[in-house]
C-alpha cells in the first residue's frame, strides 16, 4: 500500500514533538476522520531579511500517511520563506509521498494545510501586536 519513503518516514519521523518556543501553531484535521495534526513553527529571517521558517515540528494523530507526510513536509519547508511555504503545492507533496492509494490522498496532503494554517496564525498574531 505504501512506498518505501513513506514507510521510512513513518518508522523514523523527523521533526516530531512540541516546539517549545513556537511562534505559531497550525491545527488541522479532524479526529473523526482519523487524523489531527498540529504544525508548530518558529519564524526567523534570512540574509535578505525575508521571513523564513527557521524551525518546524509536528504532532500528529493519524495513520501512516498522516505521520509520514508530516515528517516529509516539515523537512521540505524548513528554511523556506513564509511566502513560498504558504504556497506549498499539494501535488508536489503527493508526489513526494510516492503513490498512496486514492482513499489515503486526503491524509497524505494534510501537512500542507497545517503549514498554511500555522503561517496564517503567525500573520494574524503579528497583525494584532
Amino acid at each position, binding site marked *: 500500500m505504501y512506498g518505501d519513503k513513506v514507510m521510512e518516514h513513518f*518508522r523514523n519521523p523527523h521533526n516530531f514533538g512540541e516546539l517549545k518556543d513556537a511562534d505559531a501553531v497550525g491545527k488541522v484535521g*479532524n*479526529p473523526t476522520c*482519523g487524523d489531527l495534526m498540529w504544525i508548530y513553527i518558529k519564524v526567523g529571517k534570512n540574509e535578505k531579511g525575508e521571513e523564513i521558517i527557521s524551525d518546524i515540528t509536528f*504532532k500528529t494523530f*493519524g*495513520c501512516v500517511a498522516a505521520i509520514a507526510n508530516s515528517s516529509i513536509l516539515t523537512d521540505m519547508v524548513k528554511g523556506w520563506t513564509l511566502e513560498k511555504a504558504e504556497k506549498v503545492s499539494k501535488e508536489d507533496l503527493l508526489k513526494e509521498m510516492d503513490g498512496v492509494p486514492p*482513499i489515503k490522498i486526503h491524509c497524505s496532503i494534510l501537512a500542507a494545510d497545517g503549514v498554511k494554517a500555522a503561517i496564517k496564525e503567525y500573520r494574524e498574531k503579528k497583525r494584532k501586536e
Partner: protein
Amino acid sequence: MKRIYMDHAATSPLDAEVLKAMEPFFSEKFGNSSSLHSFGKEAKGGLDWAREKVAEAINAKPKEIIFTSGGTESDNLALKGIAYAYRSKGNHIITTKIEHHAVLHTCEFLEKNGFDVTYLGVDKYGFVDLDELRNAITDKTILVSVMHANNEIGTIEPVEEIGKICRENGVKFHTDAVQTAGKVPIDVEKMNIDALSISGHKIYGPKGVGVLYLREGTSLEPQTLGGGHEFGKRSGTENIAGIVGLGKAMELAVKRMARESVRLALLQDKLSDKIQERVDGVKLNGHPEKRLPGNANFSFDFIEGEGLIMHLDMEGIAASTGSACSTKSLEPSHVLTAIGLSHVQAHGSLRISLGKDNTEEDVDYLVGVLPPIIKKLREMSPLNKDNVKEFENFGDSEHKH
C-alpha cells in the same frame, strides 16, 4: 525476524491435515461430481463426505448443507434468498447494527427493493436486547438475522434465546456463525436456527468455500442460477477440493474445540491483564467473559490504529484494527461506534485474535513490544487527557468526510 500471526479473525493458515485431505481431489479424484463416470463418482464421494462432516458438526442433516464460495455469499444467499421466498408473507427484516458488512450491505440492498429493515442497537458490551427484539417483531416480520459472535469485539450473542423468540413468532432466524463455527458449540436444533453461515478460511480451512445451513422446509430463492447444483439452491461446478477441505477443517475444529477454547481463553486473559497492567489509558472492548476464545479488542487513548498495526508489523506481529474490511473506508468501525465509543476511541482500537499456533511466549513478546510503541505514538499525538474531551463529541454519525 520472528513473525507472529495474531489476526485469526481475519483469516487463518490452512491446516496441514486439511491440505492432506484435499490433495487427492486436485489431480486424481478431480472429476465433475455431475459426471456419470468413475471420476465423477469419486468427486461425488468427496462432496457427500464433506456434507456429512459439516452436518454432524452443527447437528444438522446432510441435505440441509449448501456449499457456497464463502461467508459473504452465505450471508447474501440467506438474506436475499429467504427475504424473496417469504415476500408474500411480509417485508420486514430485523438485524443489528453490529453485523458484518456482508449482512448490512445486503440489508441495505433489500431496503432499496421494498423491504423494511430494523437495525437493533446493542449495549456497551455489544449485546442485543431481547425485549427490544420482541418489540420489533410485527406481523410483517419474516426474518431475523443476528450474528453468533461479532468479528471485531468477539461478543457472543444469546442466539438460543433469539431463536426461541423467532420460533414463537413464526419468524425465520438466520445467524452469521462465521466467527463461531468450529470454535463455540453450535446445535441448530437446540438453538432454533433456520439458516446459518460458515466460512472455511476462519477455521484453518481453505479460502473461497463456505456453507449455508438451511433448515429442511425453509424456502429459499436461489441467487446463483445454472446447472442446479446443491439441491438447486446454488449452481456452479462444486469446488470439491475446497469443500473436502472445509469438511476436514470442521471435523478437526470440533474435535479440538473443548481444549483449544480453554487454552485460547486463558491466553487471552493473560494478554488482557498484562496489557492493562503495563499501559494506562486502555480499555478492553466487548464483554469480559462472553466472548470468542482468543479475541481481545483494546482501545488505546490518543493514538490511531493504523500506525499501531504498522509498528507491530515491524516487530513481526500481525494484528488488526477495526474490521479487516474497513481499510477500504475512512469511517471508524461501525461496531465500535455502536457500543458507544467515540470516533477517536474507535480509531485507537487494536484487535488481537489468537489461534492454534500462538503460545505463551508469543503473548509475552507482544506484551513486551507494545508499551514502547504506544508511548512513541502518544508522544507524537496532539491529543492528551486534557484536550481529548473537545474532540470526542465528533462521534456523531452524521459527520462524514
